[in-house]
């Protein structure tokens, strides 16, 4: 079966970790992930500038490793990302901001990508809140 997974919370929220564990279990169970979509505060999970205290789980790093390791399609909502200062090189250049914090494998795109993923997948599962 195909899953679309939407994450609405930042990497330091328990629900971001739950989303990651769910995604790992889905792949381990032989299922596919059509797309991961990071929306609202979920865009912080994609920021390369997140520094997690040494005694805490670095969920942002785990997301990156999971996406790269499984070559998944990980889309970050562009409108949500811009207003929270999560920029790739193109957007940093366009708005003349001094830093880039969204390298590959993440991709900035629109809400249409969530809609399309929901159509393509058998299930859309959203994670947010506490």
């Amino acid at each position, binding site marked *: 079966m195909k899953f679309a997974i939407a994450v609405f919370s930042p990497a330091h929220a*328990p629900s971001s970790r*739950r989303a990651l564990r*769910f995604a790992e*279990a889905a792949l381990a169970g032989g299922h596919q992930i059509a797309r991961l979509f990071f929306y609202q505060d979920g865009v912080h999970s994609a920021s390369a500038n997140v520094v997690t205290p040494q005694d805490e789980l670095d969920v942002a790093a785990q997301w990156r490793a999971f996406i790269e390791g499984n070559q998944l399609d990980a889309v970050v909502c562009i409108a949500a990302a811009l207003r929270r200062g999560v920029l790739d090189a193109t957007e940093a250049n366009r708005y003349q901001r001094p830093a880039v914090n969204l390298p590959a494998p993440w991709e900035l795109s629109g809400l249409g990508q969530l809609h399309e993923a929901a159509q393509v997948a058998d299930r859309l*599962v959203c994670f947010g809140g506490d």
Partner: protein
Amino acid sequence: MTTLHVISHSPFGDNRLASCLRLLGTDDAILLCGDAVYALRAGTAPQQLLQTARLQHRLFALAEDAQARAIDSTLAEAVDYPAFVELSLRFDKVNSWL
């Protein structure tokens, strides 16, 4: 059409659980995760609410979240992540109360 309702907020902070129970279909189920597992704490109003809703085999709790909060209840069936994935496929839709 059946729906798995996923709740992660504490039942002591808002009305999500009560609202969910009000519109729960007869074949729908609830999965409690995060602070929502506090609804299973014995002797509390939310636990009373769940008991009166008669959710036999339709109430689940994410095992690690219940364990982390020292919640040990027979009211909900404990599930791990592979079982969470299986649950999401058993129902037609997954509705997260964000």
